[in-house]
């Protein structure tokens, strides 16, 4: 079963990290990701740019409305996501806990994936 792990945190807080701290966190996360890669369980991983770079398209109207930033003013923002293969929720939670130990603070939303297309972007 595929799960998405959606990473939420206060971006003002993570934005206050020093470059050294940020690098250290990324390094620890890479260790967890490498383990998953070896097991053939790691799908796409994305770290998103700050919400100030985001645009929202509200589709109710015609034409749709374009708004700057995410619409809701919430304390935590979606900062990135992973797609992983897990046997079930317990297994997915285990992966999320591993990631969480590498990068404490904020929250992960563990969400089963309904449709998955790996896409064709070459990086």
């Amino acid at each position: 079963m595929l799960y998405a792990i959606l990473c939420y945190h206060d971006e003002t807080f993570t934005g206050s990290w020093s470059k050294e701290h940020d690098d250290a966190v990324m390094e620890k996360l890479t260790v967890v990701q490498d383990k998953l890669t070896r097991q053939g369980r790691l799908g796409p991983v994305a770290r998103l740019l700050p919400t100030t770079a985001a645009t929202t398209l509200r589709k109710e109207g015609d034409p749709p409305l374009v708004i700057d930033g995410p619409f809701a003013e919430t304390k935590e923002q979606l900062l990135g996501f992973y797609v992983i293969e897990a046997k079930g929720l317990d297994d997915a939670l285990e992966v999320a806990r591993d990631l969480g130990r590498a990068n404490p603070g904020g929250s992960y939303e563990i969400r089963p994936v309904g449709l998955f297309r790996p896409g064709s972007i070459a990086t």
Partner: protein
Amino acid sequence: MTDIAWIDAALTSARPQALGALLRYFRDLDTAEEAYQNACLRALKTWPQNGPPRDPTAWLILVGRNTGIDDARRRSKQQALPPDEVISDTDDAESELAERLDGSHYRDDILRLLFVCCHPDLPATQQIALALRIVSGLTVKQIARAFLVSEAAMEQRITRAKAAVAKAGVPFETPGAVERSERLAAVAAMIYLIFNEGYSASGESIAQRAPLCDEAIRLARLLLRLFQSEPEIMGLMSLLLLQRARAAARYDADGGIVLLDDQDRSLWNREMIAEGMALIDKAMRHRRSGPYQVQAAIAALHAGALSPADTDWAQIDLLYQTLEKQQPSPVVTLNRAVAVSKVQGPQAALDLIEPLAARLGGYFNFHGVRGALLMQLGRGDEARAAFNQAIALANTTAEAAHIRMHIDRLMAESTKAAAPATT
């Protein structure tokens, strides 16, 4: 993260909002700062024991406000004067957590905090120093180091700035739309000044001053988060990111400035460029152009060019023409001349800048650009005279070295260009 690192990041990110709220309560910068300081001390003591609060900013505001009120009461017993008039709305101490969630309130709190630092009576250097002390929370020692002055001198500069702000009176009424946009423009200009303090560093001062660029980016990000739909703030943020992205390529081993054409573009920070490009893209959709957006668009054309030869100079020339209309200045025209020389050749560029001589005659870079154009036209003697004038006018040894490097390069190029003709 260790407790201390966590607390440090939490206090840094909470500071502008917490201090901004305390300034609104106490209507006095020193009182607000003292209250915030006390709240931080309390946080350092209790957070490691009791665990971090759910909302550190709200906690700091609440504790800061209570300690501030206690202090004022204590003082009122020692002195005969009741200082109650300096404390606003003391009766709704319970409602502040709910109040903090009011978005417009905290937007104006933070904007006010930034705005008091850029009072028009304050010279630019004092504005910057005050903002770094008050909003960013840098220590006087850190700021002094960045400005290459003694701690005592910086302390004095900040004290003077604070006195001027107190005398001028902090604007506490909630601003109207026009006032808000005026404040926004003043704050944006101040953030750009901070950035340039760091960006203009060279030689031995780079390590001390370059962090000012990151601090300016942090402040711009704070401002943009509050005013997400302001195209000029997007433009400012984009401009800072696109310029900062070149940091690793801008200096040689001795701290000398490497010209854009000579930079190793593989050293440019791709993530900063991606964010800068995304922001200018977003900003232009608003069709409300302004100087920061135009400058960011110019920076974006440089950032998007894989090599100097790929640069779209014609478009850069057009953007500079737009900038000349928005912000008429001989320095902008001088910058445009560089683009013109690439598109139409050195003579057209020279024709463009010759009329600026009266106004820019004392500016070293004018003679530098003029010398370069004369050199390209094969007027070597005049070029050398212009370069010598540039060196004589340079304000710092770094600027002089910069011009000298420019000359060396042009000499090499003109020999190269001249070579086929002589054989």
